[in-house]
């Protein structure tokens, strides 16, 4: 089974994500290498600066940046997508800088926050949207969205309109991100998460090594494990 790390920095509904990902899911809430995982999911809602501060304080920022630098599979959800860019207009925070661009306030939006189901118009074929009809509805809850620079416009995978069109999904190499919440978007959301998991290539690990790191401090298993316990959330 593929192993997915979900970064837990106290900003998001991790129960649903852990449950929705059909994989061996480990919530990671303090610093450790992600080497033993096949994919990394960074969820989150809220503003960029407190998120960056919490990632740093928990020793999670450097491992995430190393993961991105090594171009391994990443799925950012909502804030986890916005953090990929250089910085956020919401509070001026400097973010990961993995994609050229900034997180900006939605332009000409009739209502903010943008809360509810809206259509995701897929701009090019990508395995993340396999089996999901173009224009399907996904659940959004946000006021800001990451906008790639003109040079990085090729990373735009999907757009959605609230006021003006904004980037609702990105993909560049193994790096992907969605502004909506697949874990709250019913059948199509579960399909998207399954597509992400399906794209991961399981790393061949000796089983003894897996057992040893599986009980490492700062991790808790959810999802596939029936003995799942409530994930840690917001201890900071």
């Amino acid at each position: 089974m593929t192993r997915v790390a979900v970064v837990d920095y106290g900003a998001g509904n991790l129960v649903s994500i852990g449950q929705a990902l059909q994989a061996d899911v480990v919530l990671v809430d303090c610093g450790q290498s992600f080497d033993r995982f096949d994919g990394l999911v960074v969820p989150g809602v809220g503003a960029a600066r407190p998120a960056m501060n919490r990632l740093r304080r928990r020793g999670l920022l450097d491992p995430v940046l190393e993961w991105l630098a090594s171009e391994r599979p990443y799925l950012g959800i909502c804030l986890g997508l916005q953090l990929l860019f250089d910085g956020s207009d919401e509070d001026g925070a400097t973010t990961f800088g993995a994609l050229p661009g900034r997180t900006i306030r939605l332009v000409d939006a009739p209502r903010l926050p943008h809360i509810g189901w809206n259509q995701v118009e897929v701009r090019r074929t990508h395995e993340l949207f396999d089996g999901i009809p173009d224009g399907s509805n996904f659940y959004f809850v946000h006021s800001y969205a990451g906008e790639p620079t003109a040079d990085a416009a090729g990373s735009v995978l999907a757009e959605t309109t609230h006021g003006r069109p904004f980037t609702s999904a990105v993909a560049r190499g193994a790096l992907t991100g969605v502004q909506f919440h697949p874990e709250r978007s019913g059948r199509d959301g579960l399909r998207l998460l399954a597509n992400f998991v399906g794209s991961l290539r399981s790393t061949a690990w000796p089983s003894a090594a897996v057992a040893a790191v599986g009980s490492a401090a700062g991790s808790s298993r959810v999802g596939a494990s029936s003995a799942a316990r409530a994930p840690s959330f917001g201890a900071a």
Partner: protein
Amino acid sequence: MLCYRVIPCLDVANGRVVKGTRFVDLVDEGDPPELAERYALEGADELVFLDITAAPEGRGTLLDIVERTARRAFIPLTVGGGVRRVEEMRDVLRAGADKVSLNTAAVADPSLVTRCARRFGRQAVVVAIDAKQRPSNPAAPEAVTWQVYVKGGREATPLDAVEWAVRATALGAGELLVTSIDRDGTRSGYDTDLLAAISRRVEVPVVASGGAASPADFVSAVLDGHADAVLAASIFHRRIHSIAAVKSAMSAAGIPVRLDGEAAA
């Protein structure tokens, strides 16, 4: 284009979904996670749980229900009732809720709204407003106003509902859940005047509540009340109207709704 949302509301007491008229004659309507899953399959866009016992001993039960629901219904969940502190909101979110609704506690301590919004983002903070129309002034019968009530609609406050709505969003509310006490449980339709009065003054989404009887009422809440989402309880619990029937009426009236919910859970 953003879809208008249809939201079933589940009143929860002592771990069960109940329905009564203002806390009396409570009728057991089932297990919350089971009903939540049913509604998700039937096309609900979101769910609201209101803990109407809100007693300390009920808290652990509620968190357990929220978590069991979050594991089964993959649509958003708002939880309200008895949250008075940032830490209590954290616990509810940690159990799997996406938003927390503040009502009495927000009126008693408006800074709670700001502290919760700073900690979790304003999109996670709903301020619920229970409003009752004031007797009209004979000198100016057109100037209708509404008064805010707290503690489950039992206690009047000096607050004007529209002014409180404006202030709540300035404090950090990302959404308003507006219930008409006059209409609640009467099946006489939503108070579209109240909804419109609030909706035109705020930027955040407004959820209509109280009075739904027919699919036409949902249409009116959006077209006349300018609501962004429409909530109802008993007509769904008692299967008087299905979510699909409500959505098809809204769609026929030209209101964008999510119609692909049949297999959404």
